């Protein structure tokens, strides 16, 4: 027995263990490690600790890994980029950018989730440790230099997110979202894995750098295998970043998941997906540019157009943000289509700014949603400016920034994408992207209108138009309100009350009356008014909205980032630009 075993061992070549540079891995290690520590600590404490402890631990973890990532960035700046763990991980500016991004998202997530945890009576440790785990997956995806590592990162990211989506046990929709996300996600992961297999078959390696050199040195006469692999990889990542036509899960999952989780999902899953996409396409397959560019062009146009059109007709704010995130994905894809260093930089910059915009927005959605995230309708935001002026103001800034108004990061993000694509001659794509941006702006602005209580009276007066005969523009105004007016009971209610006298009188009295009627009707019919809302007591105001300190902090952070770096963009832009200088593209 023993001689046989030793014979076998002698025949197996010695296992070559890679040199592990632990410093290069520290951000990921801290993130994943703290996730396990949190879980362990929770199971060891019998009665559990107050949620604030877990929130603080998570924030500290995010800050620590972010700081480590910045230190890593310093090292990259002085010593140049390098590959760690036998070429499986790339440590360059690009990965540092995404490490910082994901760390920031974790900090914001902890803050945004805190009010939700307290409100829902959750423990907190579970949610936050899963969040950290999925963040570490996104970090691995961003730093991966090997298709298999990308796949591992993708799975860590996704599996944690499946569970996170299901965490709202009081809502059936949460479970539904998780199942949907899981089934479709597992499917897309399988497709991605098959893509890896085919690519490996065609190029003989899963290492991105080696694939790159192989493709640069050899011209494939039978490109079918490689192209099929590439296509499958694109499908898998297209699913993660919610690009049309792989987007169908997005609205349902965004709507069903707990609100803070949705924001986190939107920011981190997108960041991970795009980081991997850019790395695969730009680092490994720049030689196939002519093959993948048209495909991404089509994906970008579809995402922009479909996302924009469907966002406009939504009544549910979370679904609306889901469709608008699809449209944002389309915009980011435009940057990928540019296939240049500027394009990659614009992708990084866009994702960085988008993280703050979307996390802040969902922090507000979390608070407004109320117990069990029930209040997600547009009507629930009516008059928010009166109930919580600061909350509404912050949300309005974030929405306007998402629409792409200058002096916010949202505008600069769009601007850099456009610059990148126009520099490569993509004029038509630029025009399509901007038009889609205008269409999506409609929804953001309508939400602002509703929050500031301008739309209700408008719908009433629009319905009971008393405009002069033969005036085409009165009809035009009616058209603009149409989505609000036709689908909402409020429009009908206010319209019914909008007799000429009332409409002409306008002013405070008419406005208050119209809004009060609409809210009353809405609550009576939907039966969602948890607090009995006597009509006329709080004219036009719905349930009181709390504004917890954690939300204040997260909103302040997001708005500050959006506005400060919108006016003074140099630091962030340079960060993004330096991050992508290392790619071999011009």
């Amino acid at each position, binding site marked *: 027995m023993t001689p046989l075993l030793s014979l076998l061992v002698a025949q197996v070549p010695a296992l070559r263990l890679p040199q592990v540079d632990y410093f290069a891995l520290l951000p990921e290690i801290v993130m994943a490690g703290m996730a396990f520590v949190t879980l362990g600590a929770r199971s060891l404490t019998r009665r559990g600790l107050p949620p604030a402890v877990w929130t603080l631990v998570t924030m500290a973890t995010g800050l620590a890994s972010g700081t480590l990532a910045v230190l890593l960035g310093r090292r990259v700046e002085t010593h140049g980029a390098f590959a760690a763990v036998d070429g499986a991980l790339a440590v360059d500016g690009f990965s540092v950018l995404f490490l910082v991004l994901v760390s920031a998202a974790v900090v914001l997530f902890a803050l945004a989730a805190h009010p939700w945890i307290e409100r829902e009576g959750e423990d907190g440790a579970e949610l936050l440790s899963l969040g950290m785990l999925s963040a570490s997956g996104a970090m691995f995806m961003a730093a991966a230099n090997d298709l298999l590592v990308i796949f591992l990162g993708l799975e860590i990211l996704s599996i944690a997110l499946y569970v996170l989506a299901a965490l709202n046990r009081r809502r059936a929709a949460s479970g539904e979202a998780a199942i949907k996300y899981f089934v479709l996600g597992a499917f897309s992961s399988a497709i991605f894995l098959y893509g890896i297999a085919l690519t490996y078959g065609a190029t003989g390696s899963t290492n991105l750098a080696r694939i790159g050199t192989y493709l640069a040195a050899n011209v494939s006469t039978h490109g079918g295998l490689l192209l099929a692999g590439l296509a499958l990889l694109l499908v898998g990542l297209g699913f993660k970043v919610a690009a049309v036509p792989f987007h169908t899960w997005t609205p349902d999952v965004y709507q069903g998941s707990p609100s803070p989780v949705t924001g986190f999902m939107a920011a981190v899953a997108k960041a991970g997906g795009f980081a991997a996409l850019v790395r695969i396409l730009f680092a490994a397959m720049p030689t196939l540019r002519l093959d993948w560019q048209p495909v991404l062009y089509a994906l970008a146009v579809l995402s922009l157009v479909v996302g924009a059109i469907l966002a406009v007709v939504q009544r549910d704010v979370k679904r609306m943000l889901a469709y608008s995130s699809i449209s944002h994905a389309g915009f980011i894809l435009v940057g990928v289509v540019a296939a240049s260093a500027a394009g990659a930089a614009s992708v990084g910059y866009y994702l960085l700014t988008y993280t703050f915009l979307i996390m802040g927005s969902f922090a507000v959605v979390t608070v407004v949603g109320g117990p069990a995230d029930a209040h997600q309708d547009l009507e629930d935001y009516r008059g928010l400016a009166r109930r919580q002026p600061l909350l509404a103001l912050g949300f309005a800034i974030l929405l306007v920034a998402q629409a792409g108004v200058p002096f916010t990061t949202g505008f600069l993000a769009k601007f850099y994408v456009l610059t990148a694509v126009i520099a490569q001659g993509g004029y038509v794509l630029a025009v399509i992207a901007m038009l889609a941006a205008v269409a999506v702006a409609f929804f953001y602005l309508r939400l602002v209108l509703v929050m500031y209580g301008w739309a209700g009276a408008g719908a009433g007066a629009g319905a009971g138009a008393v405009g002069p005969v033969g005036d085409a523009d009165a009809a035009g105004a009616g058209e603009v309100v149409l989505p609000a007016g036709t689908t909402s009971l409020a429009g009908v209610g206010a319209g019914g009350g909008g007799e000429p006298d009332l409409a002409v009188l*306008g002013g405070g009295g008419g406005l208050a009356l119209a809004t009060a009627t609409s809210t009353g009707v809405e609550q009576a019919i939907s039966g969602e008014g948890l607090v009995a809302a006597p009509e006329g007591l709080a004219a036009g105001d719905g349930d009181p909205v709390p504004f917890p300190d954690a939300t204040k902090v997260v909103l302040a952070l997001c708005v500050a980032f959006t506005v400060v770096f919108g006016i003074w963009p140099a630091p962030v832009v340079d960060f993004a630009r330096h991050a992508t200088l290392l790619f071999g593209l011009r």
Partner: protein
Amino acid sequence: MLVLESACLGSFLSLDLLLFFLFFEVTLVPAYFVIGGWGYERRGPAALKFFLYTFLGSAFLLVGIVSVAFIHDRQTGQLTFNLLALSAHGGFRGGVGILLFLAFTAAFAVKAPVFPFHTWSPEAYSQSPTGGVMVIAGVMAKLGSYGIIRFDFDLFPQATVRLAPLLLTLAVASILYGAVVACRQRDLKRMVAYSSLSHLGFIVLGFFALTQQGLDGAVLEMTNHGLYTAALFLLIGMVYVRRKTFRTGELNGLQRSMPILAGVFTVAMLAAIGLPGLNGFVGEFLILIGTFATHRWWAVAATTGVVFAAIYLLWAYQRAFHGQPSEENAKAKDLSWREGAVLAPLLILIVAIGIYPRPLLDRITPSVVAIVHHVEASTSYVAPSVTTTGRVAALGGKG
């Protein structure tokens, strides 16, 4: 309001295309909140429509600006958004120039507004508060016409010449459409909104006549329109404060109860009609002369717009101010000294420019001549030297 003001100033001062765009866009936000927050009963949709229309135009403008910079980069190896550098390059020729011209003009035409991109303006004007509409119509809308003369002419002289008939047609369409629709309004504010469309048509007409007189007149008209439209909107706002309505059907005999207000309204109205001696006349007259020299029939059609202006304004005046006042109208108070103090500078300027436009024209003419030369230098187009120059100069002196 101050934010809006500074953003407008920023745009007028920018020589850098990108900076111009930033300010141009950012004017939207305060204007949106001014309309939405303090407007009248249909303010929500009006604000939304206003924002989206202008945003749509700006989308083209942004793509146009970035494209201009990169085409310039490809041709000269220098990436810049500086207008002077870009226009020194000699303009963008051929089909590219035309496409870019259209992209720029789309944004400016929405902002100006020019028919058929005007549909936001009556809504926005009639629903915004008095102060808001004075700035939006008086100053912000000028960003559109300013953009045309500053960027279109400088960057795309050839396309400007080539597409001038198209723009002239649109201008005439705005003049006539605005005037005819204004005739049918029973709401004072909407009427002034449409008359404003008609007058902005005149400005665009003056630009694309591509003569020195036309441009002179158009730039002057930009100033004039800002003055008398602001005065009219202000007066209507004051009527609203007293009577809570803009509708001519409910206003009558106001002359009895508030003679001073009626008198001031008359002056502003006559300026808008273009009565000689008031500022509206000088601008419109120069525009029509300039247009007549190059595009006779357009000028003829535009002249009917002046007649329509007289019809609708006088009609409206007759309905609202003449006749026997009803109970409520008779009780309305006349102007207070505070309101008078607001109106006085506008009124003085309206009359002063009407009688002695020289100081303004002296400042306008050199830049206009430079623009005409720039267009001539980069195309085969030659602006006709109108024989009326002497007369126009005399007009500048005598009124």
